[in-house]
């Protein structure tokens, strides 16, 4: 018996076809509020709420919005889901629903249930507290608009949605969803359904990978879900590793930051709490919160995508990945990890368990992402910088690049052009010319090769202009 509790009611997962996502499962249950808008986690029309352990690692639970089109239904075995239907009824609207409805926040209404769920998660965010007057993206009520940055609306132009978000108060004391945060989230349950397995522990998972190297490993399914939905990919067996305790560690010492590969980016950001500014800056620009609530570092590195945003940042930080197999573990510098377009040193029987960033970290770090849209876009070019500038001289330079080659790369020639030289406009101009020639950018629908190259050089100039001595 495998169950999901949806809007308080258990729903049986047994017999659900293995590639059925949460969205189709819910719609099959007659809950048609969640909609398919894009089937690739880009529009948020399918957003629903799930109960998760608090992202900061505290024992509380929290309401987390996810794209239901990407998650396999089987991945929510034993979990609790709330949809727009579960939040309120027409004659008893939830505060989020009431604000959206009365302010003109819905026109065609198709994206609306997804907005309701994303806004609901932010409404219940435990550390959302009213603060000051707010700013462009933050309400005086503490509402962070980035919470709905992964939801697209084609009708309203967003102004009434923003106003609704900023008009929300705090949950009432007797709000049952607010109260739900006080007790622990459902634990992960070992699942063994047709085509989908969630092993109970790392040893079991590694054993399975050794036995069946053809399996597809998923964590947040934000990449695999797209392959299933858009490219018709199917797997004999999907193995979920996102809740393996061994992949969810987090430690900070004087010499390193070690993060579990299956922490979601949201969890990682909350636990880092600013201790790796470059990573935080990267995460803030990484897709949308709906994606970050599921996506993991292990997944972003493991897919080997040349346009993933994590790699350029982590390359600049001299990060390594820890690979585990039934034989033991090995540590591979990220700069040696990628071997070609979407290929890496990871063997099919290995899992990335941890990412290790050595400390101390360089004093000057920045993450530059060039994309068409500020929220929720894929990089045309991304650059991670970690520079040590001592007494006006660049002692050490590490630059990671994405979007300019078949793999994420280090800008080695540019690093050499900076190291040992004075941190001046002249040095930067010369190094920027070198940087513009790094990699082998291509022209595609996101950007021309010429623009990509230009943006590399401009990126360094911009960095210098923004932190100029």
């Amino acid at each position, binding site marked *: 018996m495998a169950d999901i509790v949806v809007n308080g009611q258990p729903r049986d997962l047994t017999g659900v076809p293995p590639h059925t996502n949460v969205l189709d499962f819910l*719609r*099959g249950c*007659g809950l*048609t509020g969640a*909609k*398919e*808008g*894009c*089937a*690739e986690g*880009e*529009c948020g029309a399918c957003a629903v709420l799930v109960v998760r352990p608090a992202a900061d690692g505290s024992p509380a639970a929290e309401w987390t919005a996810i794209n239901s089109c990407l998650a396999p239904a089987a991945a929510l075995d034993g979990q609790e889901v709330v949809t*727009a*239907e579960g*939040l*309120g*009824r*027409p004659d008893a*609207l939830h505060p989020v629903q009431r604000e*959206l*409805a009365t*302010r*003109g*926040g*819905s*026109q*065609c*209404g*198709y*994206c*609306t*249930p997804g907005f309701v769920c994303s806004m609901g998660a932010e409404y219940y965010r435990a550390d959302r507290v009213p603060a000051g007057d707010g700013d*462009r993206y933050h309400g005086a009520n503490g509402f962070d*608009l980035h919470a709905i*940055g992964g939801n*697209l609306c*084609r*009708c*309203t*132009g*967003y*102004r009434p949605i*923003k106003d609704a978000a900023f008009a929300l108060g705090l949950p009432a004391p007797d709000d049952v969803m607010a109260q739900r945060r006080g007790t622990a989230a459902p634990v992960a349950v070992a699942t063994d359904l047709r085509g989908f397995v969630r092993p109970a522990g790392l040893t079991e998972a590694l054993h399975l990978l050794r036995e069946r190297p053809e399996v597809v490993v998923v964590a947040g399914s934000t990449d695999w879900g*797209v392959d299933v939905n*858009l490219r*018709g990919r199917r797997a004999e067996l999907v193995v979920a590793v996102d809740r393996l305790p061994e992949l969810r560690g987090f430690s900070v010492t004087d010499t390193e930051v070690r993060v579990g590969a299956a922490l979601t980016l949201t969890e990682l950001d909350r636990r880092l709490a600013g201790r790796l500014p470059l990573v935080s800056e990267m995460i803030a620009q990484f897709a949308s919160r709906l994606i970050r609530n599921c996506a993991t570092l292990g997944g972003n590195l493991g897919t080997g995508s040349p346009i993933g945003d994590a790699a350029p940042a982590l390359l600049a930080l001299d990060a390594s990945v820890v690979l585990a197999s039934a034989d033991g573990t090995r540590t591979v510098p990220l700069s040696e990890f990628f071997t070609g377009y979407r290929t890496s040193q990871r063997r099919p029987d290995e899992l990335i368990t941890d990412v290790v960033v050595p400390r101390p970290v360089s004093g000057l770090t920045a993450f530059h992402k060039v*994309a*068409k*849209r*500020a929220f*929720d*876009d*894929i990089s*045309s070019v991304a650059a991670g910088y970690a520079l040590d500038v001592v007494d006006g001289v660049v002692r050490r330079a590490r630059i990671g690049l994405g979007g300019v080659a078949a793999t994420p790369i280090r800008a080695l020639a540019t690093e050499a052009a900076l190291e040992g030289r004075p941190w001046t406009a002249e040095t930067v101009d010369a190094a920027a010319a070198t940087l513009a020639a790094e990699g082998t950018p291509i022209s595609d*629908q*996101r950007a021309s090769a010429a623009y990509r190259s*230009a*943006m590399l050089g*401009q990126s360094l100039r*911009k960095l210098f202009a923004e932190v100029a001595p």
Partner: protein
Amino acid sequence: MTITASPLSRRPDDAVVGTPLPHESAALHVTGRALYTDDLVGRTSGVLHAHPVQAPHAHATITSVDVAAAHDVPGVVRVLTAADVPGINDAGVKHDEPLFPSEVMYHGHAICWVLGESLEAARLGAAAVEVTYAPLPALLTVEEAIAAQSFQGARPTLARGDSPAGLAHAARVFEGVTSFAGQEHFYLETHCSLALVDENGQVFVQSSTQHPSETQEIVAHVLGVPNHAVTVQCLRMGGGFGGKEMQPHGLAAVAALGATLTGRPVRVRLTRAQDITMTGKRHGFHATWTAGFDADGRFTALEATLTSDGGWSLDLSEPVLSRALCHIDNAYWIPDITVHGRIARTHKTSQTAFRGFGGPQGMLVIEDVIGRCAPALGIDPAELRRRNFYADGQATPYGQPVRHPGRMVAAWEQVIASSSMEARRAEIDDWNATQPHRKRGIAITPVKFGISFNLTAFNQGGALVHVYKDGSVLISHGGTEMGQGLHTKMLQVAATALGVPLERVRLAPTRTDKVPNTSATAASASADLNGGAVKNACEQILARLTPIRELVPDASWEELVAAAYRGRVQLWAAGFYRTEGLNWDAATMTGHPFKYFAYGAAVTEVEVDGFTGAYTTRRVDIVHDVGDSLSPLVDVGQIEGGFVQGAGWLTLEDLRWDESDGPSRGRLATQAASTYKLPSLSELPEQFNVALLAGAHEDGVVYGSKAVGEPPLMLALSVREALRDACAAFGPAGHSVELASPATPEAVYWALTAARGAS
């Protein structure tokens, strides 16, 4: 209670129209209860799912189709091909859109459809169909089509006066080319149809269609049955924007054909990738122009040739082109003018209606002309625009007097004042002088948009109003709801016309068996047309109630209705409305096609990063003319949403086809939300102030209102002009900035780089 018919535009004191109300379905939207066509599938038993076989070539002859292997896929029930069509194998009104083609005309063209017990079975069945192709050369760009002289449909010319003479006596003459991209509708709800056949052969199609009557007609002619054998219903749509005006018909026909052949309900619901690769988009255009100005910067003449990218079939390309030609003047008096129009036939999706319907394209050309010529003329672009406005007594190039040009001026002056534009202009100049790497820009642009379908016949609306014995009211009308708030307005119109509380009125979904022969919900005119019809129906009922009222002067509405029933008074009525005073000669491109013009003006400020070309919209101020608003919350929503959608077209949304000579030539490279970027919250202007123009009562339109759906989209031209202004600030004064459209960060980067390099 008044029970006498009143002039169409007169509004009673206690009117329900004019009240700011949320969308009539808002509570259903936010709770996930609102049903869209695909939500009905789970409530229908035995549904078959359809999946297309899409061609992997932009242009090819189909040499064979072998469906045998599809039948070997478990769950495949049937494959629909041309041989199955009992009627006419055609999905369009121009008879150039075979439903099952023998020649592939664009990459992704659906060859045939597989029906399966599940979508997965249908998908696998479609993959098993073996089609062989003989590829043919394909034209992808307008430039290629022009070079090949590949055109389709009418080639109209709009002309007035003597443009060569006008150019000859101009003080300054400029020439240029302006080309710009189309736009994907990206309604969040993709196309969907669900067809059933009853025991008597009556076909019932639920469809996400803006044009139920035409969907009905196409389904009927594909099935080879009279229109009365087909009923089409549209509950609501998850956005339309013109993309569901003609594009649903063929999909509905596939569902209906499948249902008639199998006896089971058939669902055709496109995935996003199918929707974006199979259905038409806003037309991109290529324009060449020569503009003459006198010494004061007033237009003397304009000559232009507009070539639209029509894609593979005509679809609505002719009326879109007509509207483009009829809006190249925007708000400006151009005494001598000659504009040629033509439609390129390219091997792409069949481009179609999209909010503005050619108007935005025409206006973009003239605003680009002004934006590029102003520096050379040495006149501030805002002043240049204002100086060329229409004045009383002047007429458009097609001969229609410009009604109320003073409202254009009023909106312009009001938004300049409310936005503190002049003070901010100075602040921006000061700020720019201190900022080497970032520049701000500000611009104001006007909109004058003609309301009515160019084709006079379409300017009619119908409604059916029932008053039940208990006094409750049920209305139906010919328009569809796609989020624009039409149903909200119609409820308000009915409550106002009958003098009953809004709660007494309910609205039934749009169906062709309630109101026949309807026009598309399009051209912004649906509230005008259907509102006129609803009001007419209500007034027929009120007129019949008048003698009863005299008998029971103090009766409540419910008592009055009950008394009328007992008195054998007909308590329901079919209402009708046609827009008076219209005429249009498409051959000469002259006449009086529009009932009136909607006016507006917008001031936009942007900030551009000189390192990357990335930009943000800092502030937008809009004053827009909706007449006396029927429903202010709805109207403001249309203005804001239209503006942001227009800004998306002009700055962000970037349709890219594979134009290489490689094997995927003609493939749409941006066929997903991950590659085709819509405006998100990050594109919402930081400050966004919208005001409705006061004193804008419109005679002759229902309760003094004006249409609102399309005109505000073109206010977004101010974003493009503000970006141009910011780019110019990177260069020397007098530099004319040429800006690609869409003005993506990359395009802005190249424009500001050119400005920096200018001497």
